[in-house]
């Protein structure tokens, strides 16, 4: 089974983690000012790259902390993990 390196606990089995979708999706500054179409864009529309993709993961069976990871969607390799308040690191895929 794939190991995912938790920034706090180190490498753990994938079964201990919970997937949280695309990272760095900013909450709208003024949600009530959005049109239905803009709200739908925020809620439902996500990137779907072939290659490195910044995602949120939660170590739900361990320290229960959220963190971000860059995963290559072609190979399922985790290229980098970083904390939620840090910017996405440069990765070489």
């Amino acid at each position, binding site marked *: 089974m794939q190991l995912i390196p938790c920034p*706090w*606990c180190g490498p*753990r089995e994938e079964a*201990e983690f919970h997937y949280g979708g695309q990272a760095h999706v900013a909450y709208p500054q003024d949600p009530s000012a959005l049109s239905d179409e803009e709200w739908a864009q925020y809620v439902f529309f996500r990137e779907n790259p072939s290659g490195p993709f910044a995602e949120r993961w939660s170590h739900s*069976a*361990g*320290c*229960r*902390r959220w963190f971000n990871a860059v995963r290559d969607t072609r190979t399922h390799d985790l290229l980098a993990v970083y904390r939620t308040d840090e910017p996405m690191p440069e990765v070489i895929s």
Partner: protein
Amino acid sequence: MTVSPLSAWTDRLAALPVNASERPFLSQLTVRASDPAAIAAMGAALGVVFPSVPCTFTTGTGSFGEVQVLWLGPDEFLVVAAPDLQIPIEEALRGALGSARGSVVDTSAQRTTVVLEGPHVRDVLAHGCSVDLHPSAAPTGTCVQTLLARTGIILLVTGADRVTLLVRSSFAEYLAAWLSDACVEYRTQ
């Protein structure tokens, strides 16, 4: 009468090659705090230094006897002490926390504790736990939260051949049954 989660398993656990025994009703308090001064003050109130390294636990002795503090997250700890001390410990910790941001919650009923001892402890646990428990990777003082046979546990390495498991009360009987099964190949007779 209060019945512990594994009271029906006492004899069967004791007969296992890992000499399993329940330590029921330990006082357990979940502490959330990130202010270093408040964490130091809470440690001083219990006579133990709170762990600063992830996946470790510390032990100390103070006015509440021997107390263990487990690292559960970067701002989360579990204080474990002898039974029936949760109310005075909660008051002591709340006093030490003062006006700093944080919380102290009595979670004693959430988990029960099983102690495993013997040369086969790490082998038996390896049947259902993916974390490397070799002494070089998990020395005494290690505290990991992980899955053992799909059950969420906190695992403390308390000695060379001694491990303490904290498991949710409702999962305790399942874990005892799984332990009995995993021990089969290590029986001596």
